[in-house]
């Protein structure tokens, strides 16, 4: 068995998908905790943001890995989707998918595409201006700007609504993705039940937290 087959096989692709997914969930968790501080203390939020935005390890090692991880997860998602569609050229006249599986599990591609679109918007809102600010215009350091930039973005009701809607889809994506990633890497044992329970909470609490943050800043400022 050639090594290259490992990268081509269906199982390897799913494992890669799962591992990148788990990595993105870890990122999401830290993003969630940092953002949550903005609700309680603008100072804390500012100082953490400043650290994340200027620490060379974060900026030049973790950030590129994250970007690669996101792009990989999406590209692989599309590759798998195309293969999956080709595996059934003629679809059923009547398919009662709800009888045997959850909506979230059957529609990962749609929740994923919404999240992708959201990421575009989100980058346009925060990441691109941040990059321009730091690396194109090379503005001086300002440890207090982050909170104001955040609040300013959530003035628009349209943007706030788009964010909230995306978080709902994120929740559905996580709801299946969390437990699915463990199954894909071969974990199905006595811990699975607990892991699924944790995943369910994770998929509710994290997106709900983001919704709360968005609404909090929209209505409070």
């Amino acid at each position: 068995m050639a090594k290259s087959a490992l990268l081509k096989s269906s199982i390897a692709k799913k494992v890669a998908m799962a591992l990148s997914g788990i990595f993105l969930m870890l990122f999401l968790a830290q993003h969630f905790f940092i953002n949550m501080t903005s609700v309680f203390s603008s100072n804390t939020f500012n100082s953490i943001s400043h650290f994340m935005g200027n620490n060379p390890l974060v900026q030049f090692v973790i950030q590129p890995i994250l970007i690669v991880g996101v792009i990989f997860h999406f590209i692989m998602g599309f590759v798998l989707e195309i293969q999956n569609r080709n595996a059934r050229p003629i679809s059923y006249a009547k398919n009662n998918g709800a009888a045997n599986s959850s909506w979230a599990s059957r529609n990962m591609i749609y929740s994923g595409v919404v999240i992708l679109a959201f990421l575009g918007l989100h980058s346009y809102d925060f990441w691109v201006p941040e990059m321009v600010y730091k690396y194109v215009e090379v503005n001086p350091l300002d440890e207090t700007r982050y909170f104001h930039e955040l609040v300013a973005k959530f003035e628009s009701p349209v943007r706030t609504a788009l964010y909230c809607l995306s978080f709902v889809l994120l929740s559905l994506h996580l709801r299946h993705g969390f437990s699915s990633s463990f199954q894909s890497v071969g974990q199905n044992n006595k811990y699975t039940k607990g892991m699924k329970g944790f995943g369910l909470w994770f998929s509710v609490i994290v997106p709900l937290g983001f919704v709360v943050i968005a609404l909090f800043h929209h209505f409070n400022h």
Partner: protein
Amino acid sequence: MKLTLKIWRQKNAQDKGAMVDYKIDGIEPDMSFLEMLDVFNEQQINAGEEPVAFDHDCREGICGMCSLFINGEAHGPDRGVTTCQLHMRMFNDGDTITIEPFRAAAFPVVKDLVVDRSSFDRIQHAGGFISVNTSGNTIDANTIPVNKKDADDAFDAATCIGCGACVASCKNSSAMLFVAAKVSQYALLPQGRIEATDRVLNMVNQMDHEGFGNCTNTGACEVECPKGISLENIARMNREYLSASLKG
């Protein structure tokens, strides 16, 4: 019972095929689904029409020959049964029943509701065996004790009847449950460990080659499997595959 049947009709592999509506009367709740189709076919023959082709053989849920996607589910709405064990008491008078072949690129239609599942056989040819000669000159059966739990789990995996309901139910037409059942059966037994690495690599390779989709872990296969083969087998195969790839 009076029923409306919507049945996929397709003359042969080249034909385009279409859903056709039929009416049928005089169906009794105690009939099996296939007996209902027998009655329907008798009616077709007597009317000078061609009967609908469908695969079936043992009619007791073990040969795996019968298939059919009934009202949007493989083997119909009941659980833990094949189509031949599905009874008409699961339906109501006046119902419309949609009957389609199992759909997958790797299961091309032969005629009407009959599909070609030889892709399953080819996966088994790639590694679904233990390479022991059939001479009978092996060691005494009790020389290899097997932990009862492992033996029972291996048996549970081995009860797969190869009907293809997993593929038909999977939104991706993935054959992971079918392949995992065989890989698991042997992976759990000491006799099967010896070739475990090659087996899983070769069987998965053949599975991919046949054009089945990828596993999205929706769990539909486990729900629709007439023998209740567990998703744990897929996780086991993923583990086996990963460790085999790292070794290989």
